[in-house]
């Protein structure tokens, strides 16, 4: 069913009785051209672009839980392309361009909202670093504006500008950045892929990867063996476990990141604001809740829940930036599992196993990458080689020395 003003009006007159499920409840077939493991944003986007861009429609997405139960439904929904390194800037900008046309492409309201992303700076050296990043972005055709203190105050008045330790000196603004409704992104990609013939199979956990003479032949699942010409892994947070089924050891540790939502209040924060002197970032959802988060907990975790010290750290940073936040009650808080890679950057590549492809290592920033990640992974799977946009996101870059370390932290996943 095509969604439009007309369909809404027609359904209103029919008492909303005619809506059909957004995607089919597919039964696994015996064999597919491509099996995608992981029904998160990236897996679903990959299936959509495989079908749409490459005409490959005998595709299944296997998800161990339900669609959206992973990070795609747990993140703080920020999208942006304010990256510094030449391997990253064009990729994330392509993602933002895809976001800009996504709702028309999917015929689904993903609530993409370009309300701006503002990174605050609090010292002269930080201003220099942000000016450099802004210039790099502009050279790559990405929008960036360096704001002084007054311009920041005009945009977001309710910050503590005169904090004795961290006075706000200004900020780097990307107006085209913003937020998107995370669940709707998963549902929109699922529906669009399903429409082109992709089978979305929920409650189907992959438990083994079958290979013959170094070539993948299919996957063992809780719903039986499913044959495949090619297999793409998009299992954010669980990549090491799934790749180990094919004998691979990855440059990845699993860590937990927490997020928080306050009770709803009237409009308070315009766009996304990040604190430059502590681990804190905040935006406001359309319902009015303040959505915020901070740093990862910092040690290996598959617990999908975090610990109190990080909550305290986020709360302290929040109070340093926006003291008024202390008057709000917290409504919910949760954690998600992320693949923290050794250089803080992702992997979209072939693997040493023929026909097995890997999409992993998204750290805490993979939501914004969802469209471009799916687009590039689909290309890589369809053509057996990476697209120039993901050519640097190689699995072997740690051996060749071509690491992509935005933070310059080294092989320390908990510091990226």
């Amino acid at each position, binding site marked *: 069913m095509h969604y439009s003003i007309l369909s809404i009006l027609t359904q209103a007159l029919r008492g909303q009785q005619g809506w059909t499920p957004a995607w089919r409840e597919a039964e696994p077939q015996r064999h597919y051209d491509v099996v995608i493991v992981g029904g998160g944003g990236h897996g679903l986007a990959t299936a959509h672009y495989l079908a749409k861009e490459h005409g490959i429609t005998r595709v299944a997405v296997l998800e161990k839980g339900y669609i959206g139960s992973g990070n795609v439904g747990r993140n703080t929904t920020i999208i942006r392309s304010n990256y510094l390194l030449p391997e990253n800037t064009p990729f994330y900008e392509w993602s933002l361009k895809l976001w800009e046309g996504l709702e028309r492409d999917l015929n689904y309201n993903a609530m993409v909202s370009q309300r701006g992303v503002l990174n605050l700076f609090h010292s002269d050296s930080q201003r220099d670093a942000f000016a450099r990043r802004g210039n790099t972005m502009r050279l790559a055709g990405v929008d960036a504006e360096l704001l002084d203190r007054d311009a920041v105050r005009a945009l977001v008045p309710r910050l503590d500008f005169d904090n004795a330790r961290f006075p706000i000196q200004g900020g780097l603004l990307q107006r085209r950045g913003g937020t998107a409704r995370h669940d709707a992104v998963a549902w929109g990609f699922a529906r669009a892929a399903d429409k082109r013939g992709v089978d979305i199979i929920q409650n189907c956990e992959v438990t083994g990867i079958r290979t013959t003479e170094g070539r993948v032949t299919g996957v063992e699942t809780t719903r039986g063996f499913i044959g495949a010409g090619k297999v793409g892994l998009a299992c954010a947070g669980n990549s090491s476990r799934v790749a180990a089924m094919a004998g691979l050891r990855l*440059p*990845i540790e699993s860590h937990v990141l927490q997020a928080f939502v306050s009770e709803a209040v009237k409009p308070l924060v315009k766009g996304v604001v990040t604190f430059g002197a502590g681990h804190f970032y905040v935006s406001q959802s359309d319902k009015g809740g303040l959505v915020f988060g901070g740093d990862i907990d910092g*040690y*290996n975790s598959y617990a999908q829940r975090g*610990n109190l*010290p990080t909550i305290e750290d986020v709360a302290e940073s929040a109070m340093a930036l926006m003291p008024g936040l202390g008057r709000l009650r917290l409504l919910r808080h949760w954690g998600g599992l992320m693949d923290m890679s050794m250089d803080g950057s992702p992997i979209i590549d072939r693997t040493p196993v023929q026909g097995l492809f890997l999409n992993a290592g998204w750290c805490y920033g993979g939501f914004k990458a969802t469209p471009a990640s799916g687009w590039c992974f689909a290309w890589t799977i369809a053509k057996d080689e990476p697209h120039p946009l993901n050519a640097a996101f190689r699995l072997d870059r740690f*051996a060749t020395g071509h690491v992509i370390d935005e933070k310059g932290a080294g*092989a320390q996943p908990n510091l990226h």
Partner: protein
Amino acid sequence: MRIPCPFCGERGVSEFSYRGDATLQRPDAGSENALAAFVDYVHLRDNPAGRHREFWQHTGGCRAWLVVVRDVRTHAIEQVSAARGLSQTVDVQMVEV
């Protein structure tokens, strides 16, 4: 999460700094395949979903390096001991906590 330091007793996790996987063996720099071995040592991890043997430093206390065995699915701590002298051996006798 609380970690029982063998020297200071049980303390909140915010007193400790995480120092990563303690099962890794530093390769012999003189060996034939040293380069490849170091690439693996620096970058590749088992990253198991279960018992994990890892280094913590009691930075907000006695500053000792510890080897902790923790279930990363539950944060339950099974064993803790001083890292000194046992970091390079896999089958070490550890203090049950």
